[in-house]
């Protein structure tokens, strides 16, 4: 294997981690609320700008800003579920799609009004120089991002599998009515799940702030990728989302290396269409695919 292949493999895995976290949020929201969230890219952008604002406005270190971003994203997600998502939970799929699309326009353009459409870059002290490992080079920001992804994912799993709230979330993902009968406050649980989804997505966005220049519609370019990953992993299947996030990251960077960036993009959309046709439940078995 040539050094370039190894290099793009490494880049792919590191970026794939960030994709995985963003898609984990999407899949979690779909699993519990059965909503295909078209405001996902916009929520990611909100995460980017929250980190940017805390770091450049208040002088935080970008990574120290993350815990605050987490809390803020949770609150934003919680509130968005309360209004307006709550009102369309049993509406036909296309109404949910439209509503979340409307939310995306609102979020993106509020950012546009506040931060202007100009590109913003954030540099972290001491992170300017790329690290060398043998013949490979790695941007420190990407390494840290991957570490944070692992940590946040761990937290999410701890919450979902080791806490009472987590049990309730998983119960209502399986069976809403059943959960209600068990005395679970489904309405709160849904809001919390949406909040957690927003945290995953927002942090994934925030981790990109030190890596790339950001602008208010940047999230859109990640949105479809998140759909690809979540569907590939099986909508609602969290492990699936993580694995296929890494997979898409690697496919993207290897195919960019061999075919060039735009063909790589087409390849990924092609995979997406193929999966939707042939195996809409995803590579890793059933998630919570809704009938119809």
């Amino acid at each position, binding site marked *: 294997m040539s050094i370039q292949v190894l290099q793009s493999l490494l880049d792919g895995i590191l970026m794939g981690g960030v994709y995985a976290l963003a898609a984990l949020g999407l899949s979690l929201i779909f699993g519990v609320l059965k909503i295909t969230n078209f405001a996902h890219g916009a929520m990611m952008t909100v995460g980017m700008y929250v980190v940017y604002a805390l770091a450049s406005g208040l002088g935080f270190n970008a990574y120290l800003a993350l815990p605050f971003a987490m809390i803020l994203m949770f609150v934003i997600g919680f509130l968005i579920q309360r209004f307006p998502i709550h009102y369309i939970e049993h509406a036909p799929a296309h109404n949910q799609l439209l*509503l979340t699309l409307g939310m995306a326009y609102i979020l993106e353009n509020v950012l546009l009004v506040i931060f202007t459409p100009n590109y913003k870059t954030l540099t972290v002290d001491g992170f300017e120089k790329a690290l060398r490992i043998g013949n490979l080079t790695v941007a420190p920001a990407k390494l840290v991002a991957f570490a944070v992804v692992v940590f946040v994912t761990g937290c999410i799993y701890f919450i979902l599998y080791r806490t009472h709230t987590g049990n309730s979330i998983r119960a209502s993902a399986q069976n809403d009515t059943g959960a209600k009968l068990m005395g679970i406050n489904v309405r709160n649980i849904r809001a919390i799940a949406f909040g957690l989804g927003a945290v995953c997505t927002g942090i994934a966005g925030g981790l990109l702030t030190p890596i790339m220049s950001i602008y208010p519609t940047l999230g859109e370019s990640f949105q479809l990728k998140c759909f690809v990953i979540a569907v590939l992993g099986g909508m609602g299947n969290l492990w699936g989302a993580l694995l296929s996030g890494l997979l898409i990251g690697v496919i993207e960077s290897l195919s960019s290396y061999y075919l060039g960036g735009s063909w790589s993009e087409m390849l990924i959309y092609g995979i997406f269409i193929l999966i939707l046709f042939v195996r809409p439940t995803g590579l890793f078995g059933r998630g919570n695919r809704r009938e119809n």
Partner: protein
Amino acid sequence: MEGEIVVKTKRVEQGTLLILLVIALIFPLLSERYMLSVGISILIMALLGQSWNIMSGYAGQFSFGHAAFFGLGAYTSSILYIDFNISPWVGMIAGMCVAALVGVLIGFLSFRYKLRGDFFALVTLAFAEILRVLFNNTKALKGATGILIPYKDAWKEFQFANDRIFYFIILGMVILATLFIGVMSRRKFGIFLIAIKENQEAAGSLGVPVLQYKLVAMAISAAIAAMAGTFYAQYYGFIDPTVVFVSSISVEAIVPCIIGGAGTLGGPLLGALVIIPLQELSNNLFEGINGMNMIIYGVLIVLFVVFCRDGIYGTVIRRLKGARS
């Protein structure tokens, strides 16, 4: 004999359309260049809306990728014009055929694999994105630089110095599309489409050829979107993949139907008539603040989906027919 409800609904429908028609005919005589361009924007959106209306409003197959058909229309006529000197009028027909074929292909694959709801929407979105990337990176398709249509004032070239002619052409297209839907909705084709939307299995068990009807609806819908695409290219004189293949075009096809009422004859027209002026207004009101008009757009979508799911016109029609919302 037609009953009271049917007659009353018909009267309201015809009355609304007549009023809209009169407004549309008088408008260009009273307005200057800027207002005329606003009128043309309204009509382009109305045409896109009617296109989406057939496939998604009537037949219930929710498309999130009408940009694909719009772009194919714009590109087919423009490439034929630039490279082969074929009149855009002929190119428009060609573009409509190309779009219809692509629509049928997307539909056939999706329906064969039984995709519905949001998964169908995602497939249409993915196809539009693939076309965008493809056109953006293929030299033969003019790549990212796009196409500049040279200006020649002549009927044969589908170009006019006088914007009023453009206005009446797009108005004619909208009238044609609306007439088509109006006639269709009272006949076998329209009744079958609504039956398919309401319950596919039941429709099939009554002998409705579900797949064929869905595909025909997609083909017609795609062809009308392509027509709008060609008009767009000729009127604005410039297209590139980030203008015609983007999801905002797909959204422009959906939103007038949602605001006005999907699956109704006058809904998309009324929707476009509300949205475009509102956006122009907010552009003037918040001059210099980028994004305010899009925030209003987003708020409008959210409010309508939550509080007025059938749209302005759709709600009226439902009430007339006695349905609770």
